[in-house]
């Protein structure tokens, strides 16, 4: 049974620490200690995981992508596995391989690194499309098939993939259809001077992480995930989301509009954002907050000049009045 802080705030916090909102706040606070000055990006990443989506981080090397992934896994208390993608990687390197066992006289499946609760797929665009699609299929199905058998992945299965800008040498950009499997794409960018100063002056982030206790107790992640699914979406908000989808399809600004799957993704992310904001229902502001991350990698602008994703989604937002 979940209680919510309706306006006006008239409930008495008996077990405030157990409220989903408070758990979420604790998470954000803890992650912000590690990743300095990136509260919005951290919040988005957390919302993405709460919406049971996979996250794609695209940025220059060295801005803290890997550190953020580490921090999230650690704080959520998830079994973490990092896969460094390289150009000579094979699908079996990710999924696992069947080896002949001489004692049994039969083949035995050795699960690969994908059998973990949180995967950091580092530099995913360095691998060949074949290796990429092995992971992406596992993300979509939440299970893998090898040698005619199906192996389910853990109930909590999150992929955080990082990607260097695709104009670098030796990269295989992810095709659009596979980009669609990531709920969000975010980039961290350079920290502001004050945060950078703190980073330079402070101690090594890895060591800090190792000392930081997990924020979530056993079962609390499930509570959060369930609470996210129960966030209320009213008819007016559905009207708004539909208007956004329709506008993206017919405005003529985009070569292809948002798909129904993108619409579902937008709603799921908005639910998670509402939860992080301490509400039991989704507001248009929630949709607007997650739209750049959810829609940025799914929209292709028409025309010669590629506009930055934020500008694209900003235009979309400003073109659709609230119903």
């Amino acid at each position, binding site marked *: 049974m979940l209680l919510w802080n309706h306006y006006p705030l008239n409930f008495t916090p008996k077990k405030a620490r157990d409220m989903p909102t408070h758990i979420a706040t604790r998470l954000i606070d803890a992650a912000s200690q590690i990743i300095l000055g990136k509260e919005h990006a951290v919040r988005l990443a957390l919302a993405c995981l709460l919406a049971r989506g996979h996250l794609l981080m695209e940025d220059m090397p060295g801005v803290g992508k890997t550190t953020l992934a580490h921090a999230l896994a650690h704080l959520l208390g998830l079994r973490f596995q990092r896969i460094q993608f390289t150009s000579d990687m094979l699908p079996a390197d990710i999924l696992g391989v069947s080896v002949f066992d001489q004692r049994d006289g039969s083949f035995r499946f050795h699960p690969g690194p994908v059998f973990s609760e949180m995967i950091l797929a580092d530099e995913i665009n360095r691998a060949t499309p074949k290796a990429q699609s092995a992971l992406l299929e596992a993300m979509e199905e939440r299970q893998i098939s090898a040698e005619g058998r199906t192996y389910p992945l853990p109930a909590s299965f999150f992929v955080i993939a990082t990607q260097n800008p695709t104009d670098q040498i030796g990269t295989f950009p992810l095709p659009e259809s596979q980009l669609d499997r990531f709920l969000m794409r975010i980039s961290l960018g350079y920290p502001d001077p004050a945060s950078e100063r703190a980073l330079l002056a402070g101690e090594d982030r890895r060591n800090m992480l190792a000392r930081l206790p997990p924020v979530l107790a056993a079962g609390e992640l499930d509570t959060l995930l369930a609470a996210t699914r129960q966030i209320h979406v009213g008819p007016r908000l559905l009207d708004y989301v539909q208007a956004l989808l329709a506008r993206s399809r017919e405005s003529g600004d985009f070569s292809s509009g948002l798909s129904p799957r993108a619409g579902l993704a937008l709603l799921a992310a908005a639910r998670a954002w509402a939860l992080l904001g301490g509400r039991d229902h989704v507001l248009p502001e929630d949709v607007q907050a997650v739209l750049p991350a959810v829609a940025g990698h799914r929209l292709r602008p028409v025309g010669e000049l590629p506009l930055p994703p934020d500008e694209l989604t900003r235009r979309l937002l*400003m073109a659709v009045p609230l119903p």
Partner: protein
Amino acid sequence: MTPKPHLRPDQTGWLLACAALSLAPHATHLPPSLIGVCGLLLGWRIVLLRQGDRLPHRVLLFALALSLVALVAIEFQRLFGKEPGIALLAGLLIIKLLETHDVRDARTVILLSFFMEMGLFLYQQTMGVAALALAGSVSTVAALLSLEGRAEPPRARGMAAARLVLQGLPLMLVLFVLFPRIQGPLWGLPADAYTHRTGLSDSMSPGDVARISESGAIAFRARFEGDPPPPAERYWRGPVLSEFDGRTWRQTRGSVTDAPSYRSQGTAYTYTLTLEPHNHRWLLALDFPAAAPGLRYSSDFQLLAQAPVHTRVRVDLVSHPGTQVGLDESDAVLRQALYLPPESNPRTRALGTRLRAEARTSGEIPALVIAHFQAIKLAYTLDPLPLGRDDVDSFLFETRQGFCEHFAAAFVVTLRAAGVPARVVTGYQGGEINAVDGSFVVRQSDAHAWAEIWLAGKGWQRIDPTAASAPRRIDSGLAGALPGIDRLPLLVRSDLPWLRTLRDNLEAIDNRWNQWVLGYNPARQQALLSALGLARTDWTTLTALLAAAGAAVAGVLAAWALRRRSPADGIDRDWARFCQQLAAIGIPRAPWEGPLDYARRAGSRRPDLAPHLDAIAATYANLRYGRANADPTARQRFHQSIKAFRPR
């Protein structure tokens, strides 16, 4: 610069559909070659749409347009006038489609399509044509709608267009009733408005009436006060043909007066005649119409209109079948009625001379001729064998089969040879009552020819020689006299009862249409307006009335639309009021801005109001987007807080 947006496939599809629907009804009157070309070009455009190919080059289009103009010039021998004009428009519409790729071109196509729908009425103004034009208009409106907004399934788009057309209906009614009317054919153009009419003419050669009989078109309608006359009396008298050149019978030009030269007597039949336009002056009436204002009477007792009948006319008539006419006929007329060209039809003339010798008085001669006709077993047929040089001789002595004009001509020639003045009368015989609305319908297939003879002391008398050979022609109409002939128009055949019922219903509806829609002339408009209490109306009053009524209709529709746009419930109204008040102090809400963001932005501009703003916005967000709130006091409190909110 933003690239010009190209048409979506659904938009092009609607354009093609509306062009096809607008052009298809014109297939009945455009030349087949042009229809073929248009069909091919339309098919080509559909293929281009399906394959997503580029549209043809401008040079090719220019060549196409030139050859189209040439085709029209060849088909019609001219480029100006109604028919070549419509043909040109049809072709240009199709060529325009071939270069249509943006919204501006699409609007041109839509305009042309509307014009093609209007063009339909230049040819015909029946209800069917109106229905076709309506279907075309709905599809064109749908195409216009598709240019705006998102793609929709065709069914929804069509329904939306139909709704729009329906909303235009009140305005259309106002315009129809109040728009100042002009007398005359509204849709006719002088050059070729009066062509192509089937019907009687002012001359008759063998085979003419038979040809008319193949048309099931309505010649006129009559509505009797009381019972109609018995079938044997239903002779609708038309052109009287006295001049004979051995083959063709023609009218004699006689004097025309404002009053008949006979005195009406005997039983009277009162009826209203609604005559379809036939482009001649004569009217059709039962024998013999009494004097009526506005009508003219010729010396051979034809009833004439003041001017050729180019539009449907209604005439109120009284006829007295017992009237005796021509008791003191002039010698010139009688001489004309005895004239036979020398050397024509020698055998018939010999027959006439022989019968005259057999008769004791000239009054017996007609009966002898009828008896002779019966004795030689003349056959009544719509398909007589071809006749030789002397038509009457061939008919009486060789082929012995003919249609009513053969009978009438042979009878008159024989009587003239026997010395009895006689002439041919054409008109219609019969007609039937439409069971649905009780009107009396006479068709072209009822066209008939009979004879009139002149006897001293009795004047002109009607004798129908066809009746002697085919009495059923008079009693039960053409279909009764010629059973099983499929050359008869389908609608006239009496062996299909369901077809009769269908036809009766359709024609009753058509009659209403004619009377109330097409026949809505200045007089009827005046009558309707005086019934509404506007006794004297000139065009200025009408225009003012029209403007007022139009404005009223538009006002009602606009009010309805605005009402539907206004906020659906109290929460929205209150929130709109809140936003208005903030806008009044210079902080308007952006249309896309959410409530919390708006309150935060406004609060940063007016920190003094911030707590109020945040509370109101949060309550609104909770009421509007939260779970269905069972607490009615929350809404009430929200309403109160909005009412109390007065920023300065």
